[in-house]
């Protein structure tokens, strides 16, 4: 019997699902090996069905979602959290650092009482055990396929915790920080994207979240040396994976 695969969306932009849908021939080969039971973006919908492999996109940001993820966890064999939302709360977790309560809700919506939003946007792992986390905004398609193919082959996949710089040098890109003074987050950001942004001459903006040995204080000092103000430096980190960088700073004091 083929393993049963479900792809579930929470608070997210669908980009990680698209990263899977964009895999072309590899996706077709994958679909030969699994029974796709739930993936509304691609067609099949069976939200209550049990699956062997559950892919979760999005953060948990409403009470309804908290219930739903517990149900999926209970019915799933292997559960994989996909992308910055599912692993760090996503860009919507910027609200976690603001004052809790309904003030901003009232400012945005004419009838805020209809908006059932949790106080904080959370990664999947904050609510249920997660078997594998794949990072990025969106996830890297090749890394996603490598992970799925490994899991389906009975192996264990482990994304690297090294910095983007290794991939950047291996790809032969010119370091934008050293050669152009671009405030690049690559030295403290987890690898996996293949140094996509530096390869286009842009600084990394940290969408994979912090690397295992990230030294944020030192990189901030480097950015200050480039002439960035404290506020500008702060905004570099307060982005797609803000919560992950914030948690790291709190840990290091």
């Amino acid at each position, binding site marked *: 019997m083929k393993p049963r695969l479900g792809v579930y969306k929470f608070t997210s932009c669908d980009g990680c699902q698209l990263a899977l849908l964009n*895999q072309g*021939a*590899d*996706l077709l*080969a*994958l679909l*030969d*090996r699994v029974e796709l039971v739930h993936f509304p973006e691609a067609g099949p919908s069976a939200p209550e069905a049990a699956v062997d492999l559950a892919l979760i996109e999005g953060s948990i940001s409403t009470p309804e979602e908290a219930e739903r993820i517990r149900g999926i966890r209970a019915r799933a064999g292997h559960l994989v959290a996909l992308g910055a939302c599912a692993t760090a709360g996503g860009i919507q977790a910027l609200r976690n650092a603001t004052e809790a309560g309904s003030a901003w809700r009232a400012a945005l919506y004419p009838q805020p009482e209809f908006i059932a939003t949790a106080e904080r946007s959370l990664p999947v792992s904050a609510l249920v055990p997660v078997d594998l986390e794949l990072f990025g905004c969106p996830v890297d398609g090749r890394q996603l*396929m*490598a992970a799925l*193919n*490994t899991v*389906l*082959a009975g*192996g264990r996949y482990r994304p*690297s*915790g*090294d*910095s983007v*710089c*290794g991939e950047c*040098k*291996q*790809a*032969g*890109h*010119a*370091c934008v*920080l*050293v*050669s*152009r003074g671009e405030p*690049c987050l*690559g*030295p*403290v950001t987890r690898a996996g994207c293949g140094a996509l942004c530096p390869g286009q*001459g842009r600084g990394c903006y940290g969408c994979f979240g912090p*690397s*295992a*040995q*990230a*030294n944020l*204080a*030192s*990189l901030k*000092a*480097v950015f200050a040396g480039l002439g960035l103000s404290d506020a500008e430096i702060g905004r570099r980190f307060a982005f797609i994976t803000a919560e992950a960088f914030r948690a790291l700073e709190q840990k290091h004091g």
Partner: protein
Amino acid sequence: MTHALFLPHARLDDLIRQVQSAGYRVIGPKLEAGVIHYAELNVAAELPWGWQAEQTPGRYRLHRSQQTLAFAWAAPAQGLKPWFFAPVEPLWRLRRTPDGFGLEPCLPDAKPIAVLGARACDLAAVARQDRILEHDPHYQARRQDALFIALHCTHPAASCFCTSAGTGPRASRFDLGLTELDTGFVLEVGSPRGGKLIEPLALAGATADQIQAAQTAVAAAAAQQTRRLPAGDLAGRLAACIDHPRWDAVAQRCLACGNCTQACPTCFCHARRETASADGQSAEHSRHWDSCFGELHGHLAGFQVRPQTAQRYRQWLTHKLGNWWAQFGASGCVGCGRCLTWCPAGIDLTEEVAAVLGEAPCGR
């Protein structure tokens, strides 16, 4: 410098064509994306004529120069390492068969390369990697027929310290050796293969003045260098400083990003990974550059032997300048200065080792 010839700038293309017709892909310095790096080259016009490179800890910038020289700058952004020791490459593939699995080797099948303008530091690094990767078939497949047209360096950067590393600015091993003057190159033949290659060019001999000017320019390049390394095998001296407070101090700045190791032309650490195919019928076993600053490099038998960045920096420096001697009979450092230029935090190896050993970092 006996039997030196003179290659006018205008005839550099003749040399390139000669090398190409002998069956080589020509690799030389090119300006791309704001840096000079080794890349495939077809004509001399692609060289970075009239550019100079400023290299200091954590900073690299190109500037227009007054002179119209092709090589008026020091070490390219990356050494020759990736041309022989590929950053990522498959080593073998496994494929399911009816009775188990079959193994397919993946040896590179590339045309030999000729490096035009190989610096002394980079050639010294190749010699060190030759020793380390002597029995590596993937390295040897790319390396064995490579031809080197060396460029004796006349324009060191502030980051350079090849003189104290004993590797430059004059290259010691090459097929052809060039020293650039205002109108062309003093050319030396370093191997029978190199001699045969330039025979058809029928170059005139270099004049005594040209030879003198070339020697003076290289000697000046040696004298210009202000950074230095303490000489010889530092293993014992560094081992005595294993608890020096400087290791913790440098770890405050060290990003543990691994750029120094990826830019180092002798660093050879690598890791391997398996990638299963989408159809579940095959898997590729590949090798990629690793770094002693990385997450899993010091992870042995279920625990991390070097969890702290201070321990990783210490491991890198003490191996490079010390333990490398016992392992390979030479220092792991060739003085190219890339580790300090390409360190985003601008950590300077020569300054760190001097601080640990209690020496003055500059030879001035």
